[in-house]
């Protein structure tokens, strides 16, 4: 991972005459020219690229989960790809017992003005695990935490895989899964009881407060409790 931050100029890697940004016109719904990175990936990672499809001019590549980190690292580091911006990580579940879950990565190459969508299929009934791309993109940290929070997908290699939106001791499951009832699993009174049992000060772990240099400002009793390993809620 590069530690120097130079200016990023969109389209800088394109030839001079093609570097001006232009909105594509009359893009077909399906088919059309695929992103050149798809062909490069096919040649380099022939065994892990399962399918390539183009919808509305955007290329989607379904890859093998085991090779994902190598593929993303290559896309990021290789001078002919330069995917230097991770715009999103999310997941899709279908209301179907057979159809697998999809984990989706949206990558963008600013120097080449390219957009690439990577997908990994996770079969239902198998452990939901994909490699974390945190070692390539630091931006993946909270995206993967959110994805874990909402879908229960474990990103192996993530340094701190905790819930992001719901509180850490949330017991009802993963809200965006199809088997999750809209109102949650517990009754309203139980949800409220658990929520009110949370301690607002313990929302932050001792480590986070130490990084923010806020730990020393806490009252004595709260520092004692956090030192003893107290967590939010029950």
């Amino acid at each position, binding site marked *: 991972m590069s530690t120097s931050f130079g200016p990023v100029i969109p389209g800088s890697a394109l030839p001079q005459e093609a570097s001006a940004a232009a909105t594509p016109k009359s893009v077909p719904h399906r088919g059309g020219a695929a992103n050149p990175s798809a062909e490069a990936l096919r040649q380099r990672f022939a065994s892990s690229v399962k399918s390539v499809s183009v919808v509305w001019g955007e290329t989607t590549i379904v890859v093998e989960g085991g090779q994902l980190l190598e593929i993303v690292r290559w896309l990021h580091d290789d001078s002919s790809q330069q995917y230097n911006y991770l715009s999103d990580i999310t997941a899709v579940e279908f209301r179907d017992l057979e159809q697998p879950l999809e984990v989706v990565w949206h990558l963008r190459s600013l120097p080449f003005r390219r957009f690439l969508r990577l997908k990994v299929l996770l079969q239902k009934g198998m452990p939901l695990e994909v490699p974390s791309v945190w070692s390539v993109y630091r931006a993946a940290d909270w995206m993967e935490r959110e994805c874990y929070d909402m879908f229960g997908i474990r990103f192996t290699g993530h340094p701190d895989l905790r819930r992001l939106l719901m509180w850490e001791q949330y017991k009802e499951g993963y809200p965006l899964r199809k088997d999750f*009832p809209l109102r*949650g699993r517990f009754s*309203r*009174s139980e949800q*409220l009881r658990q929520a*009110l049992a949370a*301690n*607002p000060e313990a929302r932050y772990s001792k480590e986070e407060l130490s990084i923010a240099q806020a730990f020393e400002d806490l009252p004595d009793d709260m520092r004692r409790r956090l030192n003893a390993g107290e967590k939010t809620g029950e």
Partner: protein
Amino acid sequence: MGLSRRPDAATVQVSSGGDPWVATRLDFLVNWARANSLWPMPFGTACCAIEFMATAASRFDLARFGMERQSFSPRQADVLICAGRVPFKLAPVLRRIWQQMPQPKWCISMGSCASSGNGIFDNYAVVQGIDTIIPVDVYVPGCPPRPEGLMYGILLLQKKVMNERAADKSLRNEMEPDPRSQLYIPPSVIDEVSEPFGNSVHQTRSGL
């Protein structure tokens, strides 16, 4: 002083029943002072907070009602105006802020989300009405309410404050529901009896 000639004085005397004349005059004076210098503590979590800002800004001007100063610290506030939906994650924070406010204190629940969860937010993450966490004095309906709606709510609250009596200690009681009390209903029973109904009936009131 001229205060006794105000039309409000009659209302106060009627509502205070058999209290001595001095006490009602004192109540009136205290209430008059309180009602006309309510300092709001805005607890804005969503779009209602934008309407609240509009209400406080120059065109509608909350300062006309004695709300000259927005208090962004609960320790110096009289009215908690909860504007917007409150997720469960924020519930302990809202209750903590309410507990930090000194008595006397009131609460306005601004907008449908804060009052009842608004139906469309009847989901796993949103509190179905802040009256399950803290006591509410005035509910302002609307999604979001217009500034006139909020001002009407504030005027209602002022009217309510004008009718309070210093002798009535129950107004200032802050107590957690006591499980030994005969009035206490455990959450499981409340869930059971309210089962067929959805939304904000489907929950326990905190009893605060």
